[in-house]
């Protein structure tokens, strides 16, 4: 209870509150603009926060994450173009409702259910993360190695189109993480005589390249603003009767969202589609889905925002990101000198609880902003991409250059931008790549330490019951898609 109080007072400090508001506004704007995203904004803002205290900086990033997840619904409803992939399912009913002249009601439902889902996941985060961290305190190198491996195997089994491609993407990320000086022996690996590579692949150039440059180039065929259905939209909250009608949909969706968020994977997007499918499956009138019903907006919106809080549970408690955006955040934490993991709740109580309590405020903030200011946010959809795109490139260059004041990092950023484009074209998912890049050092160091401590790989893998259980879960997660594939093939043959 004392820690929660510390968190409340921290989150209410004027500087933290200010960055929370600023973050939510930035988040809603970038979430609403197709071609921009939460991780892109976080990556672009990381260099600007170097001089800041870690608490307001991370509160700012968290607020961007929360705001952008909701912001995606604004363009999904008004343009039928999801501002973020997490809002893709919202298009189905949100835009239909807008076409019927009820854009305000669609936005109000999205804002309210997003906030409900977000707050629920914050409660789960507040209750579960410290418990999980407490449990993980006894973990040794082997357990950490298996946890990191679990993150990789889970992401390849969840949501991705092809397990092979997800694994390939993760392996490339893991390999790139080995570039630089070896942490155990101090030897240079794959630096090709480049001094700048001795510190390893810069996380910021990689992120900015993958999220900003790739996104901007991929949006190059958008030339002008798309027609907005209702540019003078006024948000209308659902009535009590309407809320009661969708209460079970919201309840189920926020549980699905939080759970999917906790599992490492493409959290919010998968959560939104799973919840939409579940709402449709359990509905008495499934044929109405896609025609503009409130359940069709509530399900994905409650779930995608619940996934945000859910993704913070493994990120904060174990240092294993629950989503690609959480992986970006984990990188930001490292750059700010904060080590996520079990000791975070003991050594950095003010930080850990401050960020969690600030997330509650972020959810309330985007609800308030969503109700009263959506018409102004809708205006940003008027900005032409021909102005926005080059401006993003300029900020990407600036953010990367100011890291170490060298042009080499910008080349690196461009390399990752091109790699991201190629990956997008051949449908290699980016999330496993980012996870590999973030978890790579943790995976390798703990594996090698475990082998050293336990005198061999087999001894290391069998060192404790916890490690064995985690290994079984990891292998199970990795094999699950193969099992499902075989099962589906057998069923098809029977039919």
């Amino acid at each position: 209870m004392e820690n929660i109080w510390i968190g409340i007072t921290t989150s209410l400090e004027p500087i933290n509150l200010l960055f929370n508001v600023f973050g939510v506004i930035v988040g809603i704007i970038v979430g609403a603009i197709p071609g921009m995203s939460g991780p892109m904004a976080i990556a672009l803002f990381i260099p600007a926060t170097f001089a800041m205290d870690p608490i307001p900086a991370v509160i700012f990033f968290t607020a961007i994450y929360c705001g952008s997840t909701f912001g995606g619904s604004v363009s999904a409803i008004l343009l039928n173009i999801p501002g973020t992939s997490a809002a893709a399912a919202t298009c189905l009913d949100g835009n239909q409702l807008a076409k019927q002249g009820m854009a305000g009601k669609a936005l109000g439902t999205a804002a309210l259910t997003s906030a409900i889902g977000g707050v629920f996941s914050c409660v789960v985060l507040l209750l579960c993360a410290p418990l999980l961290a407490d449990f993980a305190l006894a973990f040794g190198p082997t357990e950490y190695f298996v946890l990191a491996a679990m993150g990789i195997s889970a992401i390849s089994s969840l949501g991705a189109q092809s397990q092979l491609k997800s694994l390939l993407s993760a392996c490339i990320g893991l390999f790139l993480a080995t570039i630089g000086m070896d942490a155990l022996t101090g030897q240079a690996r794959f630096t090709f005589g480049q001094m700048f590579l001795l510190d390893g692949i810069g996380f910021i150039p990689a992120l900015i390249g993958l999220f900003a440059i790739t996104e901007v180039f991929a949006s190059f065929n958008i030339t002008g603003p798309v027609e907005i259905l209702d540019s003078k939209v006024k948000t209308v909250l659902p009535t009590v009767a309407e809320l009661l009608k969708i209460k079970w949909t919201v309840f189920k969706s926020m549980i699905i969202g939080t759970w999917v968020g906790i599992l490492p994977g493409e959290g919010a997007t998968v959560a939104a589609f799973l919840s939409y499918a579940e709402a449709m499956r359990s509905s008495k009138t499934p044929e109405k889905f896609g025609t503009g019903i409130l359940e069709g907006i509530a399900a994905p919106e409650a779930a995608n925002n619940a996934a945000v809080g859910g993704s913070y549970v493994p990120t904060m408690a174990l240092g294993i990101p629950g989503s690609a955006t959480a992986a970006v955040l984990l990188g930001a934490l490292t750059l700010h000198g904060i080590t996520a993991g079990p000791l975070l709740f003991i050594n950095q109580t003010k930080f850990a609880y401050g960020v969690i309590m600030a997330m509650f405020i972020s959810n309330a903030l985007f609800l308030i902003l969503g109700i009263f200011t959506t018409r102004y946010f809708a205006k940003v959809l008027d900005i032409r991409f021909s102005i926005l795109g080059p401006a993003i490139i300029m900020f990407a260059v600036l953010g990367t250059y100011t890291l170490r004041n060298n042009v080499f990092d910008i080349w690196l950023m461009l390399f990752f931008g091109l790699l991201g484009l190629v990956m997008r074209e051949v449908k290699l998912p980016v999330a496993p790549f980012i996870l590999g890049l973030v978890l790579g050092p943790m995976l390798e160091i703990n594996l090698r330490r475990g082998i050293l401590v336990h005198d061999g790989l087999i001894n290391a893998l069998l060192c404790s019951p916890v490690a064995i259980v985690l290994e079984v879960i990891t292998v199970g997660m990795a094999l699950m898609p193969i099992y499902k594939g075989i099962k589906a093939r057998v069923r098809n043959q029977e039919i």
Partner: protein
Amino acid sequence: MEKLERIVGLVFAIVALGLFIYAGNISKFGMDKGVGAEVWPRFLLVLIMLLSLGMLVGTFLKKKGPDENNKELGVWIKEQKKIGLGILILVVYLFVLETVGFLVATILMLIVFMILLGLKKKSTLIIVPTILTLAITYTFYKMGVPLPLGSGVFRQIFLTLFG
């Protein structure tokens, strides 16, 4: 885009093979027991090779259908013209950045990008890049963040405006 997938799969596999051979140069210095610095990256490179080849083989096994993404490589390359030009602009920008300086190079880069993206209004093409770059440069200069000043006349322009 099966052809592109095949090319990418092959390139990844070849690069991984090259790096696997290169990894032999990492000496085993300082590791009497345990795993050496080269083992983990080599293990990953083997996985990358196998998975890339798996992706390549997968394109041959995939059933062909009227998939809209399944277009000819030539058509796809034509569609990427704008992106290719964009990359070229960025490459030229990076080559001249330290000589021309952030201020002038960025204004020019923004103008060219905006033209490429279809902006035609001349006043917007001049005003937006100039004001945006001046404002950013001024802010960073006042914050003490060093930006490339350029050399010769470009340096003079910068110092005249902000010095």
